[in-house]
């Protein structure tokens, strides 16, 4: 394999453990992990993280859906907007320079850390 799989495994384990424990998404850990530890560029790290989220969030949803804590009609309405946004974001992402993508991600990280402290 052309990448360091132990490092990738560490990223997955840390992100998964924290999301199971604290109910947060793994993306805020996976993306910087893939950039700083595994060495992907910002665009590839984001796309790879999105694919990872499909699997991890499905497992978490399964756990929640059996408890009945899901409002499906609200989810469907929000998804109508989110599907459009996700397509547009992924489709036009190549037009965004890497420093801008990294900059916005840094802001999201800073916001998340402030939310965790409060």
């Amino acid at each position: 394999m052309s990448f360091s799989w132990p490092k990738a495994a560490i990223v997955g384990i840390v992100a998964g453990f924290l999301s199971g424990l604290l109910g947060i998404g793994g993306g805020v850990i996976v993306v910087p992990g893939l950039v700083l530890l595994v060495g992907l560029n910002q665009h590839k790290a984001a796309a790879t993280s999105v694919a990872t989220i499909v699997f991890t969030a499905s497992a978490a949803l399964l756990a929640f859906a059996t408890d009945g804590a899901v409002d499906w009609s609200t989810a469907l309405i929000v998804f109508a907007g989110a599907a459009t946004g996700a397509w547009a974001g992924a489709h036009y992402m190549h037009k965004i320079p890497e420093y801008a993508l990294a900059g916005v991600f840094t802001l999201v990280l800073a916001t998340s850390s402030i939310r965790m402290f409060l």
Partner: protein
Amino acid sequence: MSPLEIVGLVALGLFAGTLAATLGVGGGIIFVPVLVSVFDFAQLDAQGTSLAIIVPTAIVGMVTHAKAGRIDWPVVAVVATGGVFAAFAGAMSAQRMDEELLRRIFAFVLVILAVRMGLRTYRLWRESQESAPVDPG
């Protein structure tokens, strides 16, 4: 649901879905607080509903990214496998751990990551300035 609420929910999805696919996050950081504070959801219902939005949204993002050839699939396999098992372990040990302490440790990790990503942003920006064509004016 009133028409205004429906418009609000679609707008919420549009904003969070764009950010999620572009940045590589799920979007829960936006969905959960907005569902709780604006739409009066209980915390647990907001988390479950947020996940129900995230899964199909991430699938749309994944398919679009895959068409652009941007996904590193071997990395996905390793990270997702480790992630799913660790998430179960995390969920099972949730009761046995001091959540307040964990939140603080997690917040601290995020601060370190934010600083390192901030430095990287600055370096990338400097490089982009250097490689830009020099204005001959």
